[in-house]
């Protein structure tokens, strides 16, 4: 095993910052390729007219999921060294709800708003200001919410661990679910387009 390279000390903090920048470029590049610099396209997901968000997100998830699984299974990557954010169930559920509302109201998520801002979308730039403001509000209110913030901790836990099912089985199931979702998404988009044309 010699990956993740950084955790094996192959390079230091400064080089990691350069790598961060390069990876960020790749990230932003593909986000924009998908059309996520446009809030109209992003929001269309939630009106069922354009399900690109679902397609891109889940293709990305299963690509990385299958990739990291196989690289770990052959012993190249030490999966236990890949950082897993600890789970705090209740704040994450509530945070997710709020974030979802913010997504359709604002039309972006933080990553896509960066892409929008750098391609000239003024609403993207204003959105980013909103994000900064929101974080500031949260920071100021933190003493009041800190108890809630750390409630229901579950530690670093994965679906295979919590379900007892083998990791490989879950990979297969998620791939199946995603493929089914894609087929469904294509169907829905066609229907909505036909409906729009017929209307």
């Amino acid at each position, binding site marked *: 095993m010699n990956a*993740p*390279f*950084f*955790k094996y000390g192959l390079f230091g903090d400064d080089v990691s910052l350069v790598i*961060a920048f390069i*990876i960020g*470029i*790749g*990230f932003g*590049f593909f*986000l*924009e*390729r998908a059309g996520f610099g446009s809030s*109209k396209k992003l*929001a269309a997901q939630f*009106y069922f007219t354009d399900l*690109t968000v679902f*397609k*891109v*997100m889940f*293709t*990305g*998830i299963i690509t*990385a999921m299958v*990739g*990291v699984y196989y690289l770990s299974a052959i012993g190249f990557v030490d999966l236990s060294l*890949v950082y897993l*954010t600890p*789970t*705090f169930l209740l704040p*994450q559920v509530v*945070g997710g*709800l*709020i*974030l*979802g*509302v913010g*997504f*359709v*109201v*604002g039309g972006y998520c*933080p*990553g896509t708003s*960066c892409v929008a801002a*750098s*391609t*000239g*979308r*003024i*609403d993207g730039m*204003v*959105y980013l200001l*909103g*994000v*900064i*403001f*929101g*974080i500031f509000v949260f*920071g100021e209110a933190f003493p009041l919410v800190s108890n809630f913030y750390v409630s229901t901790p579950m530690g670093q*836990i994965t679906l295979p661990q919590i379900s007892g099912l083998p990791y490989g089985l879950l990979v297969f199931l998620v791939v199946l679910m995603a493929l089914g979702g894609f087929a469904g998404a294509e169907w829905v988009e066609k229907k909505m387009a036909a409906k729009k044309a017929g209307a």
Partner: protein
Amino acid sequence: MSSLIKGTTLSNTEVRTEAKAAREPQPYWNPYLAGLGLGLVLLAAFVIMGRGLGASGAFSSLVAVGVDAVAPAHANANDFYAEYIGDGTKSPLKDWLVFEVLGVFVGGFISGLFANRVTKVVERGPNISSAGRLTFAFIGGGLMGIGAKLARGCTSGQALTGGALFNVGSWAFMMMVFGGAYAAAYFVRRQWQ
């Protein structure tokens, strides 16, 4: 190109039309290919750094630095800001996520440039004014900031990264994001349709 086929010289209007066509925004990529690219970038982060992507964390660092600059005592007394400010051994802006997000700006711009999609515009539906849209954008961003901090991440860090790693909290988060967005969509439909 068309002049080569026609074998004649172009009129002025034809030249202008052709040039305009070249500057038209290109169609978006096949979403599955874009997703594949995204997934490979994420995989690279796993293999090289042993961590995933993110976005909101960079802005948290920014806010913490800002508050620290204006009111350092207050910032360091606050657990949330203090975590981002660190112990003073290095600048909080020398953070992996900050550099990654800078890259996101650049990568988005490069892609937009090649696809002729860099334009100054306020994206909105036909039934709302720019001012209205911008107001919503700010509010949405604010909500997003709060939600992302509660959930310890946004769609890039939690949904994409945590999703690929089967993180329980991330999957729960992802479902709630879609749920919350669909639920609220009806109420802001005027913005988009």
